[in-house]
């Protein structure tokens, strides 16, 4: 937690170094960190028996939209965001997708924001690797001698890192639009209509079902281990972790075996059939699915000139 905030501060500092006065940068960073600390309080992404994204997806107002079209729409937008090597397109896509998720889908803003901090550590670490240049001679706006070579920050690298971070957040917003509005079994159904091998779809359904069994079993194990002081010290924690992980595997193997017997007793012949609700297309959906990518491409072309 504190590590990620320090990391964010470091990356922001290096990104903005040389642009404005250093004192101003310091001030901005302090404000941002304070905001992030406030924002991060008390949000968890998964509890014992369920996965919170899945829950929010079920509640979304966009849940009944055509899921195959939604899948393609989000993929196309994510690719446009990555493909366009400029800063305006990802920003537009980020705004459009956030609008869809928050205003039309009615996902709680606080949850959405806390979800956005999930990829932050990866993005920040990688940005750090891109900003810092290892070079034999000192160059750029900031240099740190390290033995026989220098760790340098150059203007070109700052721009590159900023561009990559923006397009990453643009694409992340597309992913969130999909996962916060579409329960995952609807995605399976969409994939089945796209003629994926049936055995893969079947595996997906089975894995999805098993997830909840495993999560619940594991939660119970953690409770009982914790009540026996299993997480008292780092060493015991690790030991408990190894033990529960093994036990989880072992019990799940038994469960799978028992489940097969139960299914066979109910005439399982290698195909599982599910009842699916119908999904409808309407004008609003068609408008959204066509207008957002079109506008993004338009911005891309215009900003090129």
């Amino acid at each position, binding site marked *: 937690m504190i590590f990620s905030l320090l990391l964010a501060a470091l990356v922001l500092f290096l990104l903005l170094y040389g642009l404005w006065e250093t004192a101003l940068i310091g001030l901005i960073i302090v404000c941002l960190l304070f905001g992030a600390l406030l924002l991060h309080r008390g949000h968890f992404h998964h509890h014992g028996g369920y996965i919170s994204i899945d829950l929010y997806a079920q509640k979304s107002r966009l849940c009944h939209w055509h899921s195959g079209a939604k899948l393609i729409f989000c993929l196309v937008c994510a690719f446009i965001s990555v493909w366009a090597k400029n800063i305006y397109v990802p920003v537009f896509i980020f705004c459009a997708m956030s609008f869809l998720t928050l205003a039309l889908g009615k996902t709680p803003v606080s949850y959405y924001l806390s979800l956005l901090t999930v990829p932050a550590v990866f993005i920040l670490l990688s940005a750090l690797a891109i900003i810092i240049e290892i070079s034999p001679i000192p160059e750029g706006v900031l240099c740190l001698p390290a033995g026989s070579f220098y760790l340098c920050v150059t203007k070109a690298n700052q721009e590159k890192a900023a561009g990559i971070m923006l397009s990453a957040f643009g694409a992340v917003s597309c992913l969130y639009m999909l996962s916060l509005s579409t329960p995952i079994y609807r995605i399976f159904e969409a994939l089945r209509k796209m003629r994926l091998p049936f055995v893969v779809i079947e595996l997906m359904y089975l*894995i999805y079902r098993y997830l909840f069994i495993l999560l619940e079993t594991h939660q119970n194990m953690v409770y009982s281990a914790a009540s026996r002081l299993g997480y008292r010290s780092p060493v015991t924690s690790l030991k408990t972790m190894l033990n529960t992980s093994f036990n989880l*595997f072992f019990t799940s193997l038994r469960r799978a075996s028992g489940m097969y017997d139960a299914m066979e007793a109910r005439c399982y012949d290698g195909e599982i059939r599910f009842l699916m609700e119908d999904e409808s297309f309407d004008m609003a959906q068609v408008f959204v699915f066509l207008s957002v990518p079109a506008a993004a491409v338009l911005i891309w072309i215009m900003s090129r000139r």
Partner: protein
Amino acid sequence: MTSNISRLEKRIVMFSVMIPLFYFLLPAARAMHIMEGFLPAAHAIAWGVLCIPFLALGVVKIRKIASEKRKALLILAMVGAYAFVLSALKIPSVTGSSSHPTGTGLGAILFGPSPMAVIGVIVLLFQAILLAHGGLTTLGANTFSMAIAGPFLSFGIYYVCKKLKVNKLAAVFLAASLGDLFTYCVTSFQLALAHPSEVGGIGASMVKFLGVFAVTQIPLAVIEGLLTVVVIMGLEAWAKPELREIGYLEGGEKA
């Protein structure tokens, strides 16, 4: 037999005492999935295309497994769910880290590498959609590093060790932890290829990415190895019938 296992277990636990010491010093980061939007579009598509033959091979294999032993399909699905749950759980460490083992080494040892490619891509899709971990555009690249490169190397090491009659638990440990490390190297390579450094090119950039992620990945590989050893040890002691069902214990086992 039982005392033998508990002694081994004790030794492993003693060894594992060292790992939390590492963890005291180490910061937290998510495991090595390339985040959504981090690869240029051309790279993302190319890695995806590269995965297709492996996935096709995997589908053929799984179909064969399913037609021979239907029960094995359910167990395969359970391994997938297990890998996902491992990734969803945080390893309880002092820093509140959320790094996690991949669990694919275990699957590769039990089922062989190509079915793991299919299971891996499904698990990665689940992780992207349900945990916001990884992404849709980077699905191809992540599949290649986690579900293809890692398991194939794990399986190769395990196979070679078996031929050379190395101690089985050592073989399992080596296979799982080196597979994990290899996944991390491939991911760094993918990132370096996508974002080469201006001065030193791809090589220099790869060194940078390896350095940045080494802090979490190296202890994680050790944990992955230990976990896989503990699971395999336990399975051989208590779950022989299940293992025989999936064809792991064929031939002169424990000779």
